[in-house]
């Protein structure tokens, strides 16, 4: 090990059925540094972290920690904790049924008993020192998501740790909370703690980090000092040389001109759902591609879910081709010719154990009706047709969808909705966590569908994708519509400014 490093991971391999998540990845963390771990979705960041924290067992490789002579054995999160590695995960991993204090202390004290007084006092002290507006004795589920995240951070910070891992901790925090967190990170750095920071926000990386390690497709791209790697280069490293490939898409796309004479295909006014978004207006015309943009949790998904009736709509009207329609549930939307590819492919998209064929025909079958099942021959024909059309890589139409790779699963869901021949297609994060080749295919497909007259709403966390495919962007912030950009205004900086709440508008 190097002299001042606290953690060295060498030659780490990890694969899942059908996916090679990590291949020969090295990672070194020094004392008193904040080290950004960067990469696109699916690059292997989360896997690397889960290997380090014992959630996954690595297939190969070694992990060295300061103060240990031999390679560390980390088989469970408990082991990791005992070795001084604490973690804040992207999704909240606390128990909602326990109190705040318990969540901060459980699983890491010695001894048999539970001294409530000590725990509650200790917890209150930490909460106070971090300015977290929660009480020790409060049940965790009664706190907001942001506060729950802060509690998770408080737990990690309080542990006497050598390595602190922050896996996208800021996605549910507001600006002030982020600033607070950064202050905390700097304090810990001064104390000699090594911090691994995973985030999607480039600004944050350049604000607090010392070093950057970039992963791509499960492989190590390199480790860089922050001053040696300007933003543009970082993005290039993250995306790889495929950059040129993506640039071509734009050339193929035609400039969309709205025909104001025809009423929009779908028009929503003052729409509001019970998912906590402010009323918003929306319209889309035939052949148009537009998008909702904003940070994670800004309400972009909730907007499209409201249009599709996936969340309970509590106010507002929707018109189709100028005529008012009522959408109370997804089936109403489907009958109106709307299709929705959900954000969370695993939880809301695929029906895991069913075959690719059944997954493809599902929505069309529901539209066709209970007493009119597709015959086996029909179903096979349709499935084969779309497997070919979208180049879905599957052993056969009988293969359960869960054994396909992420990208191919997404194509199956896409096929499902294309089979319903929608007039209006909503794609919520269709490119998340899938390989770059499929990403480009999907973007091309969107533009092709639009040129054939379909209206598409495209949502992506990746700004470039949105800029390449959409002719109009609706910007969301804090669950509110804050702007609409089109034409000349569609530039990275302008969109960023609007998202951040600058004075553009």
């Amino acid at each position: 090990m190097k002299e001042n490093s606290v953690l060295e991971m060498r030659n780490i391999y990890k694969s899942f059925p059908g996916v090679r998540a990590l291949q020969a990845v090295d990672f070194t963390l020094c004392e008193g540094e904040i080290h950004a771990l960067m990469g696109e979705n699916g690059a292997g960041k989360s896997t690397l972290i889960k290997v380090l924290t014992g959630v996954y067992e690595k297939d190969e490789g070694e992990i060295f920690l300061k103060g240990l002579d031999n390679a560390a054995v980390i088989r469970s999160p408990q082991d990791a904790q005992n070795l001084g590695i604490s973690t804040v995960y992207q999704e909240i991993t606390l128990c909602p049924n326990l109190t705040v204090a318990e969540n901060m202390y459980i699983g890491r004290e010695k001894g048999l008993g539970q001294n409530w007084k000590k725990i509650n006092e200790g917890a209150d002290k930490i909460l106070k020192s971090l300015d977290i507006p929660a009480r020790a004795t409060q049940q965790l589920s009664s706190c907001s998501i942001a506060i729950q995240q802060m509690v998770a951070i408080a737990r990690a910070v309080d542990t006497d740790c050598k390595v602190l891992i922050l896996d996208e901790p800021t996605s549910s925090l507001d600006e002030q909370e982020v600033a607070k967190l950064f202050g905390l990170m700097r304090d810990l750095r001064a104390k000699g703690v090594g911090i691994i920071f995973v985030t999607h926000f480039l600004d944050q990386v350049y604000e607090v980090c010392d070093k950057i390690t970039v992963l791509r497709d499960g492989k190590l791209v390199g480790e860089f000092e922050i001053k040696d790697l300007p933003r543009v280069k970082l993005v290039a490293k993250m995306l790889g040389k495929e950059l040129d490939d993506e640039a071509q898409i734009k050339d193929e796309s035609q400039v969309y001109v709205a025909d104001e004479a025809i009423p929009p295909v779908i028009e929503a006014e003052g729409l509001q759902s019970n998912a906590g978004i402010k009323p918003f207006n929306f319209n889309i015309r035939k052949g148009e591609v537009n998008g909702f943009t904003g940070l994670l949790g800004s309400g972009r998904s909730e907007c499209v879910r409201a249009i599709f009736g996936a969340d309970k709509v509590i106010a507002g009207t929707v018109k189709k081709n100028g005529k008012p329609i009522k959408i109370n549930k997804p089936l109403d939307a489907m009958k109106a010719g709307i299709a929705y590819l959900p954000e969370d492919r695993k939880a809301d998209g695929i029906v895991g154990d069913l075959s690719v064929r059944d997954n493809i025909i599902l929505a069309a079958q529901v539209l066709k009706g209970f007493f009119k099942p597709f015959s086996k021959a029909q179903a096979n024909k349709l499935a084969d047709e779309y497997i070919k059309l979208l180049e879905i890589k599957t052993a056969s139409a009988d293969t359960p969808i869960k054994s396909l790779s992420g990208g191919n699963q997404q194509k199956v869901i896409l096929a499902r909705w294309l089979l319903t021949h929608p007039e209006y297609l909503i794609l919520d994060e269709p490119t998340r966590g899938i390989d770059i080749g499929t990403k480009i295919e999907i973007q091309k497909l969107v533009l092709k569908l639009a040129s054939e007259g379909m209206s598409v709403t495209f949502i992506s966390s990746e700004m470039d994708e949105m800029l390449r495919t959409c002719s109009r962007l609706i910007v969301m912030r804090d669950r509110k519509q804050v702007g609409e950009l089109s034409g000349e205004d569609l530039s990275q900086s302008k969109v960023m400014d609007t998202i951040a709440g600058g004075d553009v508008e």
Partner: protein
Amino acid sequence: MGGNKKKKPITDTTLLLTITIVVFFLMYIGAMVFQGGGFLKAQTFFNILNTNAALIITACGLSLVMITGSIDISVGGVVALVSMCCAVYLDYLGGNVFVSILIALGIGLAFGLVQGFLVAYLDIQPFIVTLAGMFFARGMTTIVHTNPFNVQNKAFVALKDTRVVVPGMGSINRIGKYVDAYVEIGVIVALLVVVLMFVMLRWTKLGRSFYAVGGNKQSALMLGINVKRTRFLAQLFSGVLAGLAGYVYFLHVGSGAPSHASGMEMNAIASSIIGGTLLTGGVGNIIGTLFGVLSLSTIQNIVASAGLDQAWWTGITIAAMLCLFLVVQSIVMARKKKAA
């Protein structure tokens, strides 16, 4: 913030517990006012305890497994098997009382170990595992001995008839004589179990990890809890408690029979649910379970003394109560979720 001086925020566990206790007292006071008679005597209450000591113990075990999000429906069968084995051992094999207690605990331990291993380490659904456990226990009971019989062993009968006098709670009987109120030994054991379980769940790390695992297995794992071991222990405890309950039951009835404790698992589950334990896991309280058993048996007593003597009313009232509590819980929890 100074949040400490404010009223303690209410947790799910406390909320459901409060509902149960209030319902129990309303019911008992109602019975005293409208039916009077027996319900005014302390002994009536103690008799409820005497008859249900074993149920209290099994219900404690079930609350524990339910808190971890699991279930154990083998307990009734284990109670029957324990009674039968001990009866056969005492009367046919001339065994002594002390060893019979060890046999009871040993049977419970064996069920707990096997079921715990299958549930926690092989990750098989607890319902199906303990269903098989129940089948097995019931079948073994008849294999051990088919016909019901009363145990004659002297030392055992002496132990069975031991009564613990509760001072100051006696009453005057029909011929004007003062009769002391009493409880059986089983009740002392049951109350001891309640206290120990309460302390364990509230003040030990292990106790809290049961709640954590029931709340969210994945999170509990990330928080550094050994989820498998915790689930194993829950199932193990339930098995041992079922063994103990078997002996307490045996001590109360003094006989072995294949039909003993039939449906006890369902009564225990019902008691836990009425006591505010959620089957989804993570929420529950042993004191609530105690009150659950008391509510359940009080309502049976009320039905019996109201002259609705037919057996079917018991089933219907218990079911109605269970239904009421389930629906109330479901609504309360849904409301809370919405508010948060």
